[in-house]
């Protein structure tokens, strides 16, 4: 089952743009969203840094 928070996720659209990045979607969004730290934060009502990956890594490029 796909993640119920896809529409509210700032990173998900980027995972669908290139085939090399779709592994994130395969691993997290489509099959295992409970382990996604973005999803977990959204469920708790916390702020989700847009540059935080599902595994918790922060992409330094943006902030």
């Amino acid at each position: 089952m796909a993640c119920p928070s896809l529409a509210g996720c700032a990173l998900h659209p980027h995972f669908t743009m290139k085939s090399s990045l779709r592994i994130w979607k395969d691993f997290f969004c489509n099959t295992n969203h409970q382990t996604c730290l973005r999803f977990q934060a959204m469920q708790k009502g916390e702020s989700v840094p847009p540059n935080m990956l599902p595994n918790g890594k922060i992409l330094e490029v943006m902030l």
Partner: protein
Amino acid sequence: MTAFWPFWLLGPALGALTVGHWLAVRRPLGVSGVLARFTRLREEAAVDRGNAQLQSSAAALEAALEQATAEMFGSLPRPGGAAASQAAPDDAPAAPEGRTAAPLPPLSAHLVFLLGLAGGGFLTALLRGQLGRPGVALDAAFAATVARGPLGLLALAGGGVLVGFGAAVSGGCSAGHGLTGCGRLMPGSLLATVVFCAAGVACALLLRGGG
């Protein structure tokens, strides 16, 4: 004493507002959550800036994502095999459209929402001729509390702190749980609403008994 709307009119109006808000912006309607954003202003502002940069620096983001992908997955086999991932048919079942939320709006939008709340109250008082007449817009018990002077105001402040604490630990206030959550049949909100209604009734009975 002010005449409030009757329950049979107010209930459907609030329901229409809640459902209409969801249909219009795909975000649950709540007040405490919006207020909470302004208590962590620095983090929320960083999120806003990051979202804006996500839109503007696509090339840099893509490069960083490629690097992070290699670090995370390396040579791990991909679900369905590498070929399947390369072909990448976008065939995963999407979440139902009616239950997915839109991205969090920027702080500026929520500031407008809060100003609208205050503005609506001001406009109502203005139209009813209640400006500058403290207590006239409140129900009798509330007005009596305010009329007690500093002690009443202290009680109100304490009540406000308790409401804020409860809303923070339960993830929403009466608007978020009672209107939006119940309207969407969310189990947690149904339970929260039952509990705070029961607690409110119990407190009222206790206070009346003691008063």
